């Protein structure tokens, strides 16, 4: 310090000025580092185990779409009247074991200092089953989800956007409630009240605006998703009003696919309609469905999952197999089915498209005859838009295209992929071998108890299950027609059909 009688020397003044500059620069650098660490860099929970990574690892959906962790924890408490004691399980989300912090398929990522959660691949690709007369739930990683009620999940969030009861006070109270235990401090409460809550409300309102059409759709039911209509709206702002889209195209709901054994599928026409023949591109696109955006995508995380599912084996049928019948069934399958689906011989599934010429190829809609909704929902305009995604990157989408029908897929682990046909309109393999007129017209989805004889989940109204969903094949998009006639085995003898089903248990 200096005063009138002890001023600083010129050298001290210059050094003082330099010191100030150095301090300012140091503060700026420090601020930049802190800014980078807090607001730019993101933090995820890393999992050593591949399966854990698949179940809980982040693929980058949180930063664009995900709510804060505490909000996700608080909502089931705030809306216990809607969700009940199952919480997120109400929408078919799975917990590995009771008391788990987050359901399967929900990952965490700290974005801008806020712990956020959202979905990953496993939310749609873990199936469950229960054996008859047993209560133990078995999880099948990589199997299509048979429980997830994604449409209801979306509508729940849309409703929040216009719910007068969804207030900052209630949200903060729920977070700080003993059930949630958020213990927000005064500063965090201010942030939640003035930053996070308004953003949430705006995001839910926006979601509602973009997905208004979902209310016009037939009910998806558990284990079904309309992949492309929300995609059109959320990624590309496609007009989805009644004037812009036909009823058929509006109802493109279909079953989730299995994701095991992807290596042999490379080069086949993937997706139900075969609109893309690259596993990696299909995966990146599917990640968008989980809430990832081209900006937030965590490619290395997705690549890790890709590597895992590249050779993930299909699950073994958990019931008894009549070996003799299955052997007879193998011959029938070989004659009738293998040309389109490949087959298993000597314990190994053959995906050889040189041998099975129609495997991985699309069959014209008129020939296959199945419901046109899913096919119609995927349009050339939309394919063109998709091919703009990731423009400027080597992984830019370039293979999406409109096809003329539905694709032939390998049937590995087919027992774990019921109900059948792309739209999940046929409950069991046995039903599928009947002409559509004899297939169940109205039946129930939502039970996870396996019918080990007919191969598929039980679909009767007495089947165990909390929320059985009446599947009405007369609704738009729900038709159970097609994949029938001599070429499709529906005219085989009863014994042959039985043998065929027995064989398909072994796939």
């Amino acid at each position, binding site marked *: 310090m200096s005063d009138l009688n002890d001023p600083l020397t*010129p050298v001290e003044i210059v050094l003082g000025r330099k010191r100030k500059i150095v301090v300012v620069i140091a503060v700026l650098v420090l601020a930049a580092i802190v800014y980078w660490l807090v607001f730019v860099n993101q933090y995820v929970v890393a999992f050593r185990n591949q399966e854990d990574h698949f179940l809980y690892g982040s693929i980058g959906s949180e930063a664009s779409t995900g709510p804060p962790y505490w909000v996700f924890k608080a909502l089931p408490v705030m809306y216990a009247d809607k969700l009940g004691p199952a919480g997120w399980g109400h929408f078919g989300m799975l917990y590995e074991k009771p008391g788990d912090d987050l359901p399967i398929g929900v990952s965490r990522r700290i974005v801008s200092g806020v712990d956020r959660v959202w979905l990953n691949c496993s939310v749609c690709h873990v199936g469950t089953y229960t054996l008859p007369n047993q209560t133990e739930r078995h999880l099948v990683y990589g199997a299509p989800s048979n429980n997830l009620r994604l449409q209801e999940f979306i509508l729940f969030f849309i409703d929040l956007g216009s719910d007068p009861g969804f207030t900052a006070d209630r949200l903060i109270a729920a977070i700080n409630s003993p059930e949630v235990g958020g213990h927000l401090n005064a500063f965090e409460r201010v942030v939640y009240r003035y930053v996070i809550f308004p953003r949430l409300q705006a995001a839910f309102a926006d979601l509602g605006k973009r997905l208004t059409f979902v209310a016009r759709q037939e009910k998806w039911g558990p284990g079904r998703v309309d992949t492309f209509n929300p995609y059109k709206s959320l990624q590309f702002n496609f007009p989805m009003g009644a004037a812009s889209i036909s009823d058929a195209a509006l109802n493109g709901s279909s079953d989730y696919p299995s994701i095991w054994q992807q290596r042999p599928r490379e080069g086949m026409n993937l997706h139900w309609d075969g609109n893309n023949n690259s596993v990696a591109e299909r995966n990146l696109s599917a990640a968008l469905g989980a809430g990832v955006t081209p900006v937030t995508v965590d490619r290395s995380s997705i690549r890790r999952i890709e590597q895992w599912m590249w050779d993930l084996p299909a699950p073994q049928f958990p019931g008894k197999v009549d070996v003799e019948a299955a052997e007879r069934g193998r011959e029938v399958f070989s004659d009738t089915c293998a040309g389109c689906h490949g087959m298993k011989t000597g314990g190994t599934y053959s995906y050889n498209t040189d041998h099975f010429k129609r495997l991985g190829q699309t069959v014209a809609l008129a020939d296959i005859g199945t419901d046109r909704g899913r096919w119609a929902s995927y349009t050339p305009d939309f394919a063109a838009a998709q091919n703009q995604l990731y423009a400027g990157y080597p992984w830019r989408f370039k293979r999406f295209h409109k096809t003329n029908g539905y694709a032939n897929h390998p049937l590995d682990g087919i027992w774990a992929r019921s109900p059948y046909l792309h739209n999940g309109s046929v409950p069991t393999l046995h039903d599928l071998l009947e002409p559509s007129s004899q297939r169940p017209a109205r039946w129930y989805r939502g039970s996870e108890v396996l019918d080990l004889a007919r191969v598929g989940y039980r679909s009767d109204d007495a089947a165990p299950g909390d929320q059985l969903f009446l599947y009405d094949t007369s609704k738009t998009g729900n038709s159970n027609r097609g994949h029938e006639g001599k070429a499709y085995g529906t005219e085989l003898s009863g014994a042959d059909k039985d043998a065929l089903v027995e064989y398909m248990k072994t796939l």
Partner: protein
Amino acid sequence: MMHDDQQYTHEDNSRQIFQELKFRSLTVKNRLFRSNVSGQFDDYNGHGGSARLNWEEKFARGGVGCIISSFTPVSVRGRILVRYAMIDDDDKIPFWRAIGDRVHAHDCRFLMQLSHSGRQQDMGGAENLYKRGLSSTNKSDYFHGLLAEAMSREDIRTVVEQFAQGARRAKEAGLDGVELHGANGYLITQFLSSGINDRTDEYGGDWEGRARFVLEIVRAIRREVGQDFHLQMKINGVDHNDWLYPWIKKGNTLDETVKICTLLLDGGKGVDAFHISSGSTFPHPRNPPGDLPLNDLRRWYDGMLSQGTRARFNYSIFSNPVLGPAFVAWWRFRRGKVIEGINLDYARAVTEAVRGIDPSVKVLCTGGFQHADVIGEAIRSGACDGVSMARPLIANNDLPKILKTQNGPDKGRECTYCNKCLLNDLENPLGCYEVKRYPGSTFEARHQLMIDEVMSVFTPPAFAGSVAATPPQAVEAEP
């Protein structure tokens, strides 16, 4: 030791060295000059002390033909370190008269070096604490970060007059002439150098503009002392202003220096001689040419920390186990391989130019001279008329006597160009601090001899009365 491949004998060289040198108005008995070298021997306020009388007498007794004084500030604002005798007032004349008397008693001439630090004021003392160094520029010195203030025309007039009055006082003190310190980065260099002078007025621009300041000094001095009082100019042959940071301006070239020297002849009314050095800072790898003792840098540079804005940075480099040696390596690289006679080529260029115009103008050269063969050849070849020396004379006060009989000091007694004297001068009495030059079987013995030698400058003391001085402590001498 004579070098075997040289065709001249020691007698040939000795003859060159020990012939008279006649300037226009001064005759020196030989060609050996004690170059300007200082030492903090005096009163803080610039009055000379008895140690300096002893100091200068050492060299006169040792046989040099002429002594160029220490850096003698013409004003307190122009000092480089405290405790250097000044010539800023008539009240300093008696001291300098006493110096002259002491030196003349040994048939040695004495020139006063009129000096002004400009911005290159290492430790300005209490008087200058709140002042920036006067200079041609506002830019601080790039080595130590010594702050500068561009001189106004009024400042220039004042300083020119200070030089003129300094010369008058030197003459009144009975000294044999004056030298303008126009080399090594001090104020006159700061005007002359294209690497430093960034003025846009008549004192800057081309070489003539930059030389206007010193030409005005020369004329003002002549006005005060007339044509018959010896006046010489010390000047850089080449500035090498970019030695530390190769990307900054190089400063004056030899060609520009030659032109400036020609200008300073001022049609026969200007300077009588030139004294050639190099390097636009002090110190500079080329001046004093030699080594840079890291330990001494770390011990004695600390006083600079409060003086320059870059001193802390420098000190951190000197103190760093990696950067310190790297700096010394850079220092040696920028100096080059030659130490003794480092400036001879520059001197030769000036000599050739000025002789062509006026053969009565002589040229001296400084830079590491210590051996008769080198000095003899320098004179014989016409590179210069005489040489000036400082460190070799500090090491061996009687070097002229040695050079009469042999080519140089005995092995082990030569100046090693270690530059420990340079660093010690910041905080200790000037002297030779190279312990290994001193005889003795142990370090303690050699060190004690060194201390005795350095402290001998204080003998006899200022107040030597009837009480017998304590005899020097007995030390073990080498058998």
